[in-house]
């Protein structure tokens, strides 16, 4: 997918000025955090499980080569095939080759962020194959030619009126005066329109929330049932996944599954959690004849052993973005690529480069809410700071900013000078602003005073006053 992360500031302004998006984001901000909180309150072991999940993922990452080989062994033993791909190009080529091998014309898709990452849909279309998104949110944005704006609710930026408009424009064979005022009607229409596609599909592509090394299985966590129809009805099931989704055993998967739905939507468990292992067995009446797992690296192996390794623990729950005040202000499209919110701010520069995505880890107050809700305890602000350190070392920040920082640090390292300057600034600004108590404008501080007043200093610095009181004997 083409990245527009470079224009984050403009993207953000567009998002801030979009009343529909702002309405949708308000809904999100009042919905998800509350639901997660209730689910967490109901499970006394939740915090303990976070610690265990963190160590399961760390252990797996430390031995990722072993677990990948074991996983592959077990996929093959159950009749499946494993394909390895380093890059988006290689991934697309593998998927196309499998589709062509069965003469596929229609491919249904469950939600797959990897497919977004490699730009699969456009590529299939260019090669004469029709991809059909079946997750309701993904289907809506496919019709609108928009990218997803959220990890698990891709159309979260829309209100139902936009969805209704899109359905009316795209489902032209249906009665033009039908009512689409309610979410119920929109869901029923999507169900009816997509059902024939499920049945006609030659290939079904899903992602994987987890891969289980013990059994060679892939796990999808969904609510709609589209993922299951996608992977059960067609002749071929392709699982598109990145390397780091592995967990060692079914028991480890159970631990992580207990955290996933609760962190994502506040559900105890998703409606459908499906563990798939290979193609149909002899005697089965349904199920795909072929099961393919496409393992994508695309920069993950490079993150191992370095300061961003913790990011590979991510289980794609979306809790971080659901709790992020920056995401809640600008929406997911502002981030300009597949992954948004705090996890996107860390992962995107790793995958497309810090020079293209520098704004993302900078547009954060480090409030820490993301880290506090991450089920696998990824220190997201710390990772964002590491990106800022890279930028600083590589001199990617604007020169004015670097100069200001340099000046500040230079003074701060010289206490006597620092105290003198603070006292001077306090006196000068205090005197200028003494009448009103605040500044409506202030040179060099336009970013601040454009939208808020700047309170006036009291006129003397603390240190100078303290020194006086000491001389007077009033202090110590």
């Amino acid at each position, binding site marked *: 997918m083409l990245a527009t992360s470079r224009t984050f500031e403009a993207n953000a302004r567009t998002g801030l000025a979009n009343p529909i998006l702002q309405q949708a984001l308000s809904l999100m901000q009042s919905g998800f955090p509350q639901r997660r909180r209730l689910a967490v309150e109901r499970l006394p072991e939740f915090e303990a499980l976070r610690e265990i999940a963190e160590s399961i993922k760390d252990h797996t990452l430390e031995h990722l080569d072993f677990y990948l080989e074991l996983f592959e062994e077990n996929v093959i033993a159950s009749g499946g095939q494993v394909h390895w791909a380093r890059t988006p190009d290689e991934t697309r080529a593998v998927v196309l080759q499998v589709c062509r091998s069965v003469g596929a014309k229609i491919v249904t898709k469950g939600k797959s962020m990897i497919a977004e990452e490699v730009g699969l849909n456009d590529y299939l279309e260019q090669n004469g194959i029709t991809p059909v998104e079946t997750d309701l949110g993904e289907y809506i944005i496919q019709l609108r030619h928009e990218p997803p704006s959220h990890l698990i609710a891709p159309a979260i930026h829309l209100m139902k009126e936009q969805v209704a408009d899109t359905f009316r424009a795209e489902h032209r064979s249906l009665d033009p005066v039908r009512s689409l005022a309610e979410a119920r009607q929109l869901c029923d229409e999507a169900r009816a329109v997509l059902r024939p596609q499920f049945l006609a599909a030659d290939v079904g592509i899903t992602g994987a929330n987890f891969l289980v090394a013990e059994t060679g299985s892939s796990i999808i966590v969904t609510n709609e049932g589209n993922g299951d129809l996608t992977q059960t009805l067609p002749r071929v099931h392709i699982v598109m996944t990145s390397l780091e989704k592995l967990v060692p055993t079914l028991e480890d998967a159970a631990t992580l599954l207990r955290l996933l739905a609760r962190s994502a939507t506040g559900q105890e468990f998703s409606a459908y959690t499906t563990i798939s292992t290979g193609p149909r067995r002899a005697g089965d009446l349904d199920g795909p004849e072929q099961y393919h797992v496409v393992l994508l690296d695309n920069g993950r192996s490079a993150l191992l052993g370095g300061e961003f390794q913790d990011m590979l623990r991510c289980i794609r729950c979306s809790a971080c973005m659901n709790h992020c*005040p920056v995401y809640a202000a600008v929406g997911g499209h502002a981030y300009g690529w597949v992954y948004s919110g705090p996890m996107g701010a860390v992962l995107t520069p790793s995958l497309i480069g810090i020079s293209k995505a520098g704004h993302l880890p900078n*547009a954060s107050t480090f409030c820490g809410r993301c880290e506090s809700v991450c089920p696998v305890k990824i220190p997201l602000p710390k990772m964002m700071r590491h990106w800022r350190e890279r930028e600083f070392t590589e001199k990617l920040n604007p020169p004015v900013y670097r100069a200001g920082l340099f000046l500040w640090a230079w003074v701060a390292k010289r*206490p006597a000078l620092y105290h003198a300057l603070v006292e001077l600034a306090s006196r000068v600004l205090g005197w200028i602003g003494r*009448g009103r*108590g605040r500044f409506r404008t202030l040179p060099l501080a336009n970013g601040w005073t454009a939208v808020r007043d700047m309170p006036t200093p009291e006129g003397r610095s603390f240190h100078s006053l303290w020194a006086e009181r000491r001389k007077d004997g009033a*202090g110590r």
Partner: protein
Amino acid sequence: MRVALFVTCLVDLFRPTIGFAAVKLLEQAGCTVEVPRTQTCCGQPAYNSGDRADTKAIAKQVLDAFEGYDHVVVPSGSCAGMIRVHYPELFADDPAVLPRAERFGARVWELVSFLVDICGMHAVTTRWDHRVTYHDACSGLRELGVKDQPRLLLASVGGLTLKEMSGAEICCGFGGTFCVKYPDISDKMVSDKAAEIVGTGAEAVLAGDLGCLLNIAGKLQRHGRPVEARHVAEVLAGTTEDASPIGVPR
């Protein structure tokens, strides 16, 4: 107990009243307070901008300035968090300094949590007849666990009623350099915070961090909202007569 006060840049420049309120509270709690002269900044602006070298230089200066005190108290969660939580991370690869940074960090406290958790203060004897709401500054809350302590002490202030915001824990949008690097986003965040404050019907908003308070006060005043903004220390110390609210002339 002999404690040192880490003043913080913002208190030093903008509102010494807070520093004096902190001293008064610490003295009430039985401490003797000293203010080392060689302190300047905790280094956060450099740290969050990715400039580790300058941050380390400033941090070493802090370690030197506060050598020998049993406790160092800070009227700011973000500065206290920087020293307590982040100095060890800063010197993680520096075995010469790391032990010192860890030992030092363990002696650094945000003001209100120091009063309650270390000094055992559970009530104050002041009075302030106001309806207030409280903003939980992010670092204090999430890095240092400051949540219940200010509320405990505020509950003992005569005539004070506290009306909580449902979004008390949501970031106000200050974030140090964030508010000038991304002013539009910061504005949205502080607007939401201001709207919630006004929505509680409170006459005053209190918090433990001056950065947040300057941001919030500036926003409230730009829109003509008559809500007072003060540091919680001023109310607890009973020094509200000594200075007008933030951004209001004497």
